[in-house]
């Protein structure tokens, strides 16, 4: 009986504390790609200042923005990281929920690499090769788009080895996958003349789109774009659907979100290629080698200069209403945009972040420090 009473007392005292007071540490959510960088800054910020170290959760870019746009108040998050820019639909959602003033900070770039084991054959690919190897629909002999028939890399490009196409990559929920589909697959698709022509057709050229779509045999994609966008559907929308769909016949293997796992699988299977972020290549350069894309090796300089074509921007977004309510947000922002952190010699660069160019950095840092509002 006594035990029961004691336990009840504990429960009662526990429930009393539930009505927690204001938060004393910053709450950060968002992209798993920015997570390794944000956590380093958070840790150093906590150690070098009197503020508590921010709490960083890895929720994915989309999940993070959803939490971010939920509203204003200590129960909501302060900052979200994203490996792509905020979408206009998400921005509107934010506005609707009272998250009016948002500060956008561009921190640098991340390269996406295709890599294989060190003892495999080094690959020299173009974005077109990647498209022809991994897209769902590719041009057939009669000009129509057909289900991807390519079995080996030699089928794709006679200069490549006659090895089975086997690519390990992240699942559709991942931002890396989105960026890869957009930059590599869709980018490669544009080198097909018909698709390039289709991409340039505006909403007013519906008849021409209709004809070209028929020629390519992709009426279904056009119908989907019409359904989604109505009369404003453009050729670009069709290309988006066609270019970004990945084949599902086993050549592209979904290997989960854990990039370390992909690296291990590549070592076990020298014939396979894997898709992951540049920082994992950097850390495992003794085990795997990055494929050359469009004539450029995945290296710091090539990604920073834009010569390496599969790279994407990394952002974080700050809820302005929380500055002053939750301690340390302004200081965290200043730490993050300082030269020591994301400058060309900053410590994030040691962790694999590709820094911004000089001018862009200055402009971004000034805007961020001044807390300039984001407008889309």
């Amino acid at each position, binding site marked *: 009986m006594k035990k029961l009473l004691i336990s009840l007392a504990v429960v009662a005292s526990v429930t009393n504390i539930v009505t927690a007071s204001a938060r004393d540490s910053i709450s950060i959510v968002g992209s798993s790609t920015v997570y390794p960088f944000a956590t380093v800054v*958070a840790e150093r910020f906590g150690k070098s200042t009197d503020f508590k170290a921010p709490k960083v959760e890895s929720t994915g870019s989309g999940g993070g923005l959803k939490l971010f746009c939920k509203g204003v108040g200590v129960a909501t998050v302060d900052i979200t990281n994203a490996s792509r820019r905020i979408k206009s639909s998400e921005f509107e959602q934010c506005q609707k929920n009272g998250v009016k003033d948002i500060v956008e900070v561009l921190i640098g770039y991340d390269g996406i690499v295709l890599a294989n084991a060190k003892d495999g054959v080094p690959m020299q690919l173009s974005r077109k090769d990647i498209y022809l190897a991994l897209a769902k629909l590719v041009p057939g002999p009669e000009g129509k788009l057909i289900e991807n028939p390519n079995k080996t890399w030699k089928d794709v490009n006679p200069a490549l080895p006659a090895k089975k196409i086997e690519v390990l990559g992240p699942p559709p929920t991942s931002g890396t996958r989105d960026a890869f589909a957009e930059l590599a697959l869709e980018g490669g698709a544009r080198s097909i003349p018909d698709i390039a022509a289709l991409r340039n057709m505006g909403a007013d050229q519906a008849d021409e789109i209709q004809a070209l779509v028929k020629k390519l045999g992709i009426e279904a994609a056009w119908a989907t774009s019409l359904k989604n966008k109505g009369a404003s559907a453009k050729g670009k929308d069709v290309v988006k659907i066609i270019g970004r769909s990945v084949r599902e016949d086993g050549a592209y293997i979904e290997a989960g979100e854990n990039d370390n796992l992909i690296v291990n699988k590549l070592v076990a299977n020298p014939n396979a290629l894997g898709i992951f972020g540049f920082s994992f290549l950097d850390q495992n350069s003794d085990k795997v080698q990055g494929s050359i894309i469009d004539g450029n090796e995945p290296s710091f300089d090539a990604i920073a200069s834009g010569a390496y074509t599969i790279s994407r921007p990394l952002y974080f977004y700050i809820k302005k209403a929380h500055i002053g309510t939750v301690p340390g947000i302004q200081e965290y922002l200043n730490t993050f945009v300082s030269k020591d952190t994301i400058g060309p010699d900053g410590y994030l660069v040691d962790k694999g972040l590709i820094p911004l160019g000089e001018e862009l950095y200055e402009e971004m840092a000034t805007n961020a420090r001044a807390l300039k509002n984001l407008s889309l």
Partner: protein
Amino acid sequence: MTNSTNTEASQAITQLFEDRTLLAKKRAVARKRRNRSEQRFRWAGRLSIAFGIACVLFLFTDIISKGIGAFTQTYVDVEITFNQETLGLSSQSTEQEIKAASFSSFYKKALREKYPEITGRKEKRELYAMFTSDMPLILRNMVVADPSIMGSTQIISMIADDDFDTYYKHSYGRDLDEADKISRLSDMQEGLVDSLAKSGAVKTKFNTILFTNSDSREPELAGIKGAVVGSILTLLVTLALSFPIAVATAIYLEEFAPTNRITDFIEVNINNLAAVPSVIFGLLGLAIFINFFGMPRSVPLLGGFVLTLMTLPTIIISSRAAIKAVPPSIREAALGMGASKVQTVIHHVLPLAMPGMLTGTIIGMSQALGETAPLLMIGMVAFIVDVPTGITDSATVLPVQIFLWSDSPERAFVEKTSAAIMVLLTFLICMNSFAVWLRKRLERRW
């Protein structure tokens, strides 16, 4: 006639004998077949046990061989003079003055002076990268703790950076092929390691950092303290909530509740709940505790609530079994002596059922200790540097720490992951052995 009868009789007898032997043979064959199938069955059993043991052994050797390295850490003894001019401090400086001083540039200058032959920008960066990035902070804290060391020369045991550490522990001085060598160091850095090691300055010690530090993105500074404290806080909340609720439920259902459709329905539901995948409880926690009651994310209090939902059925079921195992004669005797129903239960049934209940509770707790999936939904899968001090501070738990480390790009986290798994397994084995001991110790047979 008699002759023929005789022959007939003898024939019949031989026939009988033959039949008998035939039957015996048949039986022998059948027996053999039966024995064989029995043998086969036994072998199948032995094989499956052997397979199970082989799997466990494989798992343990894999984890231990990978993780054992994380329990040692490489240190380098370096002489550093706390130069009063460079730092602008004296032995009388106040804490505030010390905190404002630039230890970072002081530290870098000290390293450059040690190796005046290193001049290039890239080479200098590589030199700084040999030791943990927290060194300036460690030096600062040394001065804060004892300002009188200003101006003196001290031998500092510097923490080697993760790449240095991995190389020194696994590849240095071993005759390895280029392919098997684990090294992210440049040739210059490897040369530095070599000269340091030859001078006897490099030492490997037991890695106390692993147990005294919280999570960090620098593998050499990362530890499990925050996660262990988070786990303990979460389990305390779980225990404080689930044990009384579960015991009360079990007692009511076993001793007081009438047998009718409603209690049957409740019983079926408790059994079903025990089989619900744990991630569902996480979603429930998100919907009810965060979205409806507005509780803060990522706190042990919330984690405890969610894990309570998960462990309740386990404890209720084992508590009911324990109460059922108390012989009715005890209750009858108590009632016969004039005790009330509640007195009977509290004074006689409950103490006798307690060992079983406690065992169930410990099993439920160890289940909760190993859980990650429901915590994923409520924001406990997060990077948290500070050790939580209460149940409303942001915290993470041990299995989540393992998950986070396994996903980190830095190579040295591989061994940290295995080391954290070893610690978690130790906790689980301890809890389960305690449950077994408790049962052996307190169990009573009738």
